[in-house]
């Protein structure tokens, strides 16, 4: 059975993919559908969902719906970019450790273990606070705390593949280390890494929302976590201010997880251990 056939048989994964496409559409269409700045006051404050504002307005009369559209951009951007960074760091560390083994492996793994031991979210908070909140510092903070599981996975894959006969055959054939790592080993190690990466996008979005909730978001860009955090003082009276952005986070994260699991089932007929969240 081809990859697509088995992926499409998974109803959850298909639904997830559809939702994800919709969120992407939200993000892409935001500048056109809501061409104004989402930070602008657009009418009376604290209007419930209805006539004037489809999803209500906040304490400063800002449009919640516009915030949700624009917030999708931040969530997706940070989710994807910080995952890419984390995967690159993790794969490099893990590949070097697993392929060369010995002392290199020892040092790389102690380093990874250290980063896995320290409380990751606390470190992320510290990093963003110290580097001053902004897209770049959030991406750095999230990548710094999320690469260790990738490194461990990449290492174990490389370690297992390193001693597979086809890799040793390449060594005997005189193929260079670089070509072996990228041409022989990495393509075979990629499947579980891709699956883990897909789930990490979801975790990154959750982490970003928590940072923004705590007031550590990019002050120039509206984000879903920020919207909930900012409305905390009035959330008892204005439920829509926390419910809608929260739903947006929840649905996006759920969709990504469903897609990730679909990938896992389609690419790994033999169930592997679930990736670390």
């Amino acid at each position, binding site marked *: 059975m081809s990859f697509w056939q088995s992926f499409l048989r998974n109803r959850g994964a298909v639904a997830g993919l559809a939702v994800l496409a919709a969120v992407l559409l939200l993000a892409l269409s935001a500048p056109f559908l809501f061409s104004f700045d989402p930070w602008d006051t657009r009418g009376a404050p604290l209007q419930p969902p209805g006539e004037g504002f489809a999803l209500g307005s906040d304490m400063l009369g800002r449009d919640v719906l516009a915030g949700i559209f624009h917030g999708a951009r931040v969530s997706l951007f940070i989710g994807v970019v910080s995952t890419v960074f984390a995967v690159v760091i993790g794969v490099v560390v893990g590949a070097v450790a697993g392929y060369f083994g010995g002392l290199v492996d020892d040092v790389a793994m102690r380093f990874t273990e250290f980063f896995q031991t320290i409380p990751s*979210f606390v470190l992320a908070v510290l990093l963003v606070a110290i580097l001053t909140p902004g897209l770049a510092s959030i991406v750095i903070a999230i990548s710094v705390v999320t690469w260790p599981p990738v490194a461990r996975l990449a290492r174990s894959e490389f370690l297992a593949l390193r001693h597979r006969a086809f890799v040793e055959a390449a060594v005997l054939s005189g193929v260079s280390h670089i070509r072996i790592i990228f041409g022989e080993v990495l393509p075979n190690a990629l499947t579980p890494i891709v699956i883990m990466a897909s789930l990490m996008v979801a975790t990154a979005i959750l982490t970003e929302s928590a940072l923004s909730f705590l007031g550590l978001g990019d002050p120039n860009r509206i984000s879903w*976590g920020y919207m909930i955090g900012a409305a*905390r003082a009035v959330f*008892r009276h204005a439920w829509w201010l926390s419910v809608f952005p929260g739903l947006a986070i929840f649905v996006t994260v*759920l969709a990504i997880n469903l897609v990730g699991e679909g990938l896992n089932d389609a690419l790994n007929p033999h169930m592997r251990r679930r990736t670390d969240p």
Partner: protein
Amino acid sequence: MRILLFLGGWLVKAALILLAIVVLNFCLVRLAPGDVATVLAGESGAADADFLARTRAEFGLDRPLPAQLATYVGNVLSLDLGVSYRTRRPVADMVLERLPATLLLTGTAFLFALGVGPALGVLAAVKARRPADSLITVAALVFYAMPIFWVGLLFILFFSVTLGWLPPFGMRSLIPPSGELARAIDVARHLVLPAVTLGLFYVAIYARLTRGAMLETAGLDYVKTARAKGLPEWRVVTAHILRNAMLPIITFAGLQAGHLVGGAIVAETVFAWPGIGRLAFDALLQRDYNLLLAVFLASAVAVVLFNFVTDLLLRIADPRIGAAGG
């Protein structure tokens, strides 16, 4: 003998990790914009160069970096983590007085997660591909995808504001009831929402993890042997599948300790729980880096201690570990 070796090895490892964290902490202090001098200067309004130089000399900030690092490490070892930029109180004291509340919250959430999550996972695995499994799997997926702070807010809206069942904020009522027992119950009532909020996310994780590990273990040869021996199904599940599926769960629980502390920052902020997470949030608002670093160090120590417990448990649960060559 073996346990002594383990203890010795662990102590060395823990010391190295903590030393690395202290060094990391020091680097972060240096990265932070401004220093004690500028902060104090900003507060007292006396921003002249002379004052800055004097304050820096007082705090040793004019000395070369390695010397400062040595001093810093020495200070941390004697539990001197400096003073808060704001309150001028030793941050170690501030953290220590808040620590019990956080331990109560995270401990309860952890026990709740560990009590409920694996049980649900086992149930799902035993009923794999049947309605109970679907229900648990979907519920786990849902709670796994919800931001903790959002769940907390929804719980407050529903259980406190709408139903009025449980208090939404703090750890004690404004006027605590008299009597030991009544006070304990009062704290317990305050504890329910934050602990469940924080715990649900991990319930979801443990349920998913346990289900996966159970199904994977169920396919192994020794489970077939157990069936070939004519054991009743419950015995196959408990003694052979679950007993072995537990091992990755324990490993994972150890790795999760750090996450739990992170979640506590968010949960304590939402529920105004007076722990170190809440302290961190306040420090964050006031850019009180010294305090923030102390919270980081304290949580790191807690995590290292917790990892020790899970390592120990794993050795008990899996006799193969440490046996080879030991």
